[in-house]
């Protein structure tokens, strides 16, 4: 299944069901998925291996998604899609002003997610 062109996605979410859900579905779409449960794990993975896209939750213990977004933006040029239960306009603006490429509000359907990330991965 692993091919040279398989795109790599990093999922960052402190909720285990969400990590499982995203990983299983994206893998069936042919992506290679790594999941991190917090910001520190995410930054470590990003330093260790290349990724083509990051799916990032905002409300997490430790480093929150916005802090991670700022850090990642200073060093990496990869699409970052926010996946958050925060639905206020101010939350979205805070994410976009820090360089988020897209913002998906939970709850969302899997098809919606796949349709949004596919073009960013050249599909």
């Amino acid at each position: 299944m692993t091919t040279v062109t398989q795109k790599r996605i990093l999922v960052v979410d402190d909720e285990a069901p969400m990590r499982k859900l995203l990983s299983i579905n994206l893998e069936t779409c042919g992506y290679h998925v790594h999941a991190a449960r917090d910001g520190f794990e995410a930054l470590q993975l990003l330093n260790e291996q290349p990724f083509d896209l990051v799916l990032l939750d905002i409300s997490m213990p430790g480093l929150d998604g916005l802090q991670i977004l700022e850090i990642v933006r200073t060093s990496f040029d990869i699409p970052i899609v926010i996946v958050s239960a925060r639905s206020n306009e101010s939350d979205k603006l805070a994410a976009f002003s820090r360089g988020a490429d897209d913002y998906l509000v939970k709850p969302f359907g899997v098809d919606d997610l796949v349709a949004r990330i596919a073009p960013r991965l050249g599909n």
Partner: protein
Amino acid sequence: MAFELAFPADRALAAESASPEVVLAAAAHELRLPLSHIKGFVSSLRRTDITWDTKTTGEFLQEIELEADRLGELINALLSKGAGDRRGYVTRELRPTTPAHLVQSALRRAHLILQDRRVEVDVPQWLPPFRMDRDGMERVLTNLLENAVKYSPGDTPIEVSAQVVDGGDLEIVVADRGVGVAPVDRARVFQPFYRSETRMPGHGLGLTIALSIVRAHGGQIQLIGRRGGGTRVSVRIPKNIHTGSAATDRSP
């Protein structure tokens, strides 16, 4: 008649609480999480481009059921106007349950949260059964395990122990080697959506729910600091439970 104890968590409940707007926003966020898991697993099952095998389908359905339960408990906790309300949790059937059985069931229920996290269990098989609402007490332990996982480094163990203490009460302790909770916050974290100013992340409703369930058993729950860093959460369930509210459990 009431089984009154000095609940350490009580003292903070009358203290400062967040504004209605803040509570409402936090509540909405908290409700969206299980809802987003349900929606996610349902939409996975409905995908037309793939056929899931029976095992995966079963797992997804189990997740949906667990998250629906979680949603129901959140709603109960919200309706209880915080943990200060005695109506917060009504115990279901009280059944004799050994601590070993309870802890094993809770660990099974929390397997997705725990994943490959090391858990050191010190719960003797010979500890006697205690009458409890098994489902509720499993939820208490699951919430405590979830906090331990979230707020401590992944390479440190989580410890679960149980013992019979003075007077024959049951004490169950869930301990971690995480950042710990400042003494000033140890009672306040039981408030719904309490967020400390000392950089501790918010606990949402997990501890509020745990407190209301433990209290419905006439027990107490307490956060204790640890030498060397981390948190110990002690749950005490009385030997003779007097729920005070449930008609199912009146003494003759």
